[in-house]
């Protein structure tokens, strides 16, 4: 066979198969292609080795930046919210404010419980204000509930206040509850709130401040006016007057005295209201629905970064789910066309 092949090759090469001169001239006439702008060839393996780690690095960096920025933004928002709420009482008359730590600070920290720190609005000194606070505090168990209730009453009394009402309930299978309405002198309300919140873990707090300065001023003005009216009427009645005039002035004096008594009573009530704050304290043994813990800034940043990566992964997975069938379909069509063309070419060349 080898001999035959060699002989055949020699015979085949001896055949007149060289290109004719016309064709040679035609090809020579083509000359040399113009040198085009050299486009750097992409070495896919090398590019993959560089691009994949680069993309992963960029993604990780983006996740870290996102985590840091997000955690910083959350902390900043919480802090600024506390500042705004605490500074509000200095505002004008009729202002009211409410705070809720569960809204502003996700973890159930004892807002009042931190030593010498209070994040709740406090009454403004030298102004008459109606100060009301609702405090919900969790204690450990029923025994603690009783002890803490007694402690709360003792705290209020020690600060010169009193217990307006107290009710305590406990039943099998139900969390124990103790509801106290406490009246605390406004001057000591911050101290009271700190000590009351230290009885357990603050679950909820609401603070309401209504400025009464205008009301007190109006009531005082009314009292002064009535007193002046009474003085004038009394002086007039000391003069010799006709009987009908004297009778009318006497009626006016009686009305003024009644009004003065009412105005004085209202003024005193307002002052009493402004002097004593109302603190509604609820002690409970209920467990939190979901335990929350302070992860700290690093923990929050890590969590946010993982959330970012999870989001990016979800997007990539979705894209993959959508694109892979399309790519497979295109590949299948391409393979089919290629196979068809090859078979067609084979048929074409098989025909002798």
């Amino acid at each position, binding site marked *: *066979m080898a001999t*035959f*092949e060699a002989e*055949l*090759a020699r*015979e*085949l*090469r*001896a*055949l*007149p*198969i*060289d*290109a*004719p001169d*016309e*064709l*040679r001239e*035609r*090809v*020579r006439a*083509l*000359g*040399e*292609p113009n040198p*085009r702008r050299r486009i750097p060839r992409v070495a896919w393996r090398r590019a993959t080795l560089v691009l994949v780690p680069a993309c992963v690095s960029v993604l990780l960096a983006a996740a870290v930046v996102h985590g840091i920025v997000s955690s910083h933004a959350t902390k900043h928002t919480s802090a600024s919210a506390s500042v705004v709420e605490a500074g509000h009482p200095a505002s004008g008359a009729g202002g009211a404010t409410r705070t809720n730590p569960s809204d502003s600070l996700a973890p159930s920290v004892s807002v009042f419980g931190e030593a010498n720190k209070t994040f709740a609005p406090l009454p403004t000194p030298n102004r008459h204000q109606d100060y009301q606070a609702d405090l919900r505090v969790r204690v450990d168990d029923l025994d603690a509930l009783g002890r803490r209730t007694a402690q709360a009453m003792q705290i209020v009394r020690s600060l010169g206040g009193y217990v307006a009402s107290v009710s305590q309930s406990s039943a099998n299978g139900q969390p124990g509850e103790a509801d106290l309405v406490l009246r605390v002198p406004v001057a000591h309300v911050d101290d009271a709130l700190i000590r009351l919140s230290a009885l357990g873990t603050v679950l909820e707090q609401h603070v309401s401040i209504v400025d009464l300065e205008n009301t007190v001023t109006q009531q005082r003005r009314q009292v002064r006016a009535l007193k002046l009216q009474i003085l004038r009427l009394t002086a007039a009645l000391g003069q010799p007057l006709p009987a009908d005039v004297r009778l009318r002035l006497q009626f006016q004096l009686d009305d003024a005295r009644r009004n003065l008594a009412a105005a004085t009573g209202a003024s005193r009530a307002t002052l009493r209201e402004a002097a004593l704050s109302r603190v509604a304290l609820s002690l409970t043994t209920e467990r939190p629905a979901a335990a929350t813990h302070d992860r700290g800034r690093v923990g929050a940043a890590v969590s946010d970064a993982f959330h970012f990566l999870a989001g990016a992964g979800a997007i990539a997975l979705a894209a993959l789910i959508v694109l892979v069938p399309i790519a497979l379909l295109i590949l299948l069509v391409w393979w089919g066309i290629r196979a068809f063309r*090859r078979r*067609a*070419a*084979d048929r*074409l*060349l*098989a*025909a*002798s």
Partner: protein
Amino acid sequence: MESVNAAATMPALAAGRPTFASVAEAELDAVHAYLLFLTGDRSVAEDVAGETFEKAFRLWRRFDPRRGTARAWLCSIARSAALDHLRAEERRRRRELRYARETRTVDEPSWGDGAAAAALRKLAPADREVVALRVVLELDGPTTARILGISRTACSTRLSRALQRLEELMTDGDV
């Protein structure tokens, strides 16, 4: 045919990226021979060879000597051009259904009057093609398989069958 064999070991090709003109000069006979074996028609081979080099001229910047020889690259282009030509011919013949086969005549003998030439005429184009690539142009098996778009095994089988058929035809008294 010396130029065909000499071009396969051209130092310019091994040294790096050659110029198009030098490659065209060196490989023209080989490409023409291949197309002559493939089509079995001298005028068609000439036309397709010209078309092949025009196409190669346009695509020259895509040629990468590291991926294969210039001869293999040109033969791939030539095969594609030849198949396009044959497909067009096939379509034309279908249109002229009544007398196409009768009118399809070779204008001039392609290989002369010897025993090998007569045997080649009896071979199918596919067999002539593989003989041309492997025996005349002396391309290796993998390169030939890549040009033909088939596996190495299929290429080897096709060559063996073609040579056997050629031997039979040449030794047969009817040839």
